[in-house]
């Protein structure tokens, strides 16, 4: 695939995002050919640049975080001191040469730099400006501080996930930062890009992370608004499937997930397991299985716990039963033969972090395949390149700006 055939070739993004949800959104554009220029600074460092993990055997730098690098492949990095008048002028010049400007700072930060939407429109009338505030650009909680970690509880996801006898601790990650919020932002941006291509008109897009995240609990919302019911945590169970859960297997912390939705799958399960209890009358119907779900789960676990998770998965799948190992990162990266055959994870050489794995594209375009091809940029790696090739500055001008601390 020649890179110049990538669908977003020719699109330039002035990327003022940081942390998770913003950079992942712009990375998807970069995966498919857009030139994404991260505007960073030494003084206002993206927190992920100093976050773990980093390689074990090297002293830490701002360039080797696996957290940061996995979200910033294929991008360029310029370092501009936005605390200076000239720095803000440069940023505006970059925006004037861009199709899209993206940011997820606390509302008001860009305005403080003189880079509000109205000002940007003056230099680039058809700009698509994408803002990803936590709670929105308006409203009583507009200025509330937050990160992905607080969106999971705010959206209802924490309350609804997990076992009912446990406190609602969430999903162990800042879940909505990684697919949900960046995904929604990129969808809105691409739709706006299509509109601009057809009409010549850009627009302002606002992706409030709370509003975006509430969309993925919509069924519980409707159950409340239509029925007045507050759904509670149900562990791994579903009202319309049984058995449905994760069952302990041989070895340390090994589990297999099994999800049975109909009689055909149940019969396959019974054939695969071949134990006497599978033939008991009380398990013959869905309602029977549901009525005896605790007992059924215990029996299943007494069977799985004597076997390896992979073995159970293979056996059940061979009988047409939805089953899968609860895979660890080691499983998905090193062991899963399917992900390996499909080449989902990509290894890229980085000057400081070494050869490391990156997530591939979350979807595959068969004629124009995209994904990570260049490692995440070093902080300020492309400052000169961008100043010269994009902004048209001379070597002398660049040297002066460096000396003045405008470029860092």
């Amino acid at each position: 695939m020649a890179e110049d055939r990538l669908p977003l070739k020719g699109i330039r993004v002035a990327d003022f995002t940081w942390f998770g949800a913003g950079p992942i959104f712009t990375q998807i554009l970069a995966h498919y050919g857009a030139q994404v220029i991260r505007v960073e600074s030494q003084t206002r460092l993206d927190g992920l640049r100093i976050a773990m993990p980093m390689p074990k055997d090297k002293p830490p730098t701002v360039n080797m975080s696996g957290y940061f690098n996995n979200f910033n492949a294929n991008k360029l990095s310029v370092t501009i001191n936005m605390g200076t008048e000239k720095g803000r002028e440069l940023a505006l010049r970059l925006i004037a040469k861009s199709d899209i400007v993206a940011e997820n700072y606390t509302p008001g930060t860009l305005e403080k730099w003189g880079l509000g939407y109205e000002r940007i429109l003056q230099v680039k009338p058809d700009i698509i400006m994408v803002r990803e505030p936590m709670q929105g650009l308006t409203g009583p909680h507009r200025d509330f501080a937050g990160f992905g970690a607080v969106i999971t509880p705010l959206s209802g996801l924490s309350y609804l996930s997990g076992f009912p006898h446990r406190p609602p601790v969430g999903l162990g990650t800042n879940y909505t930062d990684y697919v949900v919020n960046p995904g929604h932002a990129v969808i809105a941006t691409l739709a706006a890009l299509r509109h601009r291509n057809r009409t010549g008109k850009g627009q302002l897009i606002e992706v409030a992370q709370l509003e975006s995240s509430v969309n993925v609990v919509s069924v519980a919302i409707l159950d409340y608004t239509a029925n007045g019911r507050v759904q509670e945590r149900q562990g791994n169970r579903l009202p319309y499937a049984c058995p449905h859960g994760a069952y302990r297997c041989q070895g340390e912390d090994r589990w297999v997930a099994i999800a049975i939705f109909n009689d055909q799958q149940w019969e396959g399960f019974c054939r695969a397991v071949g134990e006497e209890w599978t033939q008991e009358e009380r398990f013959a119907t869905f309602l029977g299985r549901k009525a005896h779900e605790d007992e059924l789960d215990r029996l299943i676990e007494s069977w799985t716990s004597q076997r390896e998770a992979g073995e159970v998965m293979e056996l059940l799948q061979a009988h047409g039963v939805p089953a899968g190992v609860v895979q660890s990162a080691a499983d998905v990266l090193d062991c899963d033969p399917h992900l390996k055959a499909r080449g989902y994870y990509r290894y890229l050489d980085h000057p400081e972090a070494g050869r490391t794995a990156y997530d591939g594209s979350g979807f595959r375009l068969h004629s124009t395949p995209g994904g990570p091809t260049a490692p995440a940029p070093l902080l300020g790696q492309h400052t000169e390149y961008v100043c010269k090739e994009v902004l048209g500055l001379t070597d002398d001008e660049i040297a002066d700006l460096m000396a003045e601390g405008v470029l860092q």
Partner: protein
Amino acid sequence: MVAEEGPLSGVRVLDLAGPPGAYCGKLLADLGADVIKVEPPGGDAARRIPPFFHDDPHPEKSLYFFAFNTSKRSITLDITKADGRALFRRLAAKADVIIETFPPGYMDGLGLGYEALKVENPGLIYCSITGFGLWGPRAHWQASDLIAVAMSGMMYLAGFPEDPPNRPYGDQAYYCASIQSCTGILIALLHRDRTGEGQLVEVSMQEALSMNQETAMQFWDMRKELRTRTGEGRKLPTGEWFRVPGLGTYQCADGYVYLMVGIPGFGAPLATLIDWMAEEGMAEGLASPEWKEVFSQLDLRLIAQLLQGTDVSMATQWVPKFQYVDPIIERFIRTKTKNVLYEEGQRRGLLIAPVNTPKDVVENPQLNARSFFQEIEHPHLGTTIRYPGPPYRLGLTPARIWRRPPLIGEHNLQIYRDELGLSSEQVGALAAAGVI
């Protein structure tokens, strides 16, 4: 001036998707595309999934179906019958996008796969969503939401170490696969607009979810350290449990709150919380200069090292302090409601969030001040239902719920007769034959 149509107006989508892809069609439809839900006679299987409106298990009353099918039109069509296939080919010839979630090869077997359809419609964008993708050794394996989240690596990180790993609520595999699909479709659409060339968009739920592992994959790749689920706190190699005070889920007067207090760079420090406790006479000595000195030592690196739990000597120095401090914070939190902790916490710069119930979300003052929820009329139910609004706001070409979810085959006549040009007699004959 805001246009009265979405940014995708003029894009026609045939949506044959089951639950894994239904949200993709909704995203496109709420953005203004003309999304036609192609249901088997009798209706989409998702119409039988609970919860139901007033708990009445009627195929026109599934709230699960409602959630994923706003702004769409509906036709019924049996694509396993010869007449059904012929009709589908006619529809596909005029479509921009097809979304389906059948097992790999199923549509090819009916002569309706991408290779067959693109002959007549080379600009077609054909999106397949499956558990494991269209090819590879496990492409034909069975999957559901639970299996996909398990196999992706994300489930391994959720829950308490002594419990089974936790499934995230609400078919997150389907949401994520749909979001990834919609992104792929839109990029393909931009490519087609430029070149006239359509293509196949392939989504594996397992791959679509992988990013949700946060840093687990990189921790293994770079350090051969395995991130596991940690529940409420951390366990030392000695088996002792601890929590870094201010970090985690705490019980309050009317539920739970999540505290993210004390990580440098993330909101106000722990001392700010202690000051608040002292103002209310609940600091129990923690406001002393000695304790403040202790708290001031908790920098990012130290917290990270403690959370990794590998440095036992450091842990033995700190954990007893944590075990003394944390219950004092717990006692304070327990005297206050979610909203007081949230609003007053934010006023003080403390990152404290309520663990909202669905009711709390619907009543959330921020969401309501911004008119996030949309009241949608359901004349057949004799009522309106409040839906979450779209996940984004486009200033010029709005996304919104343009119409309520369709009834089964509601648009058969409109689409087959008025748009495809069949006669009323032909439509009647197809219905009699069980095709529509």
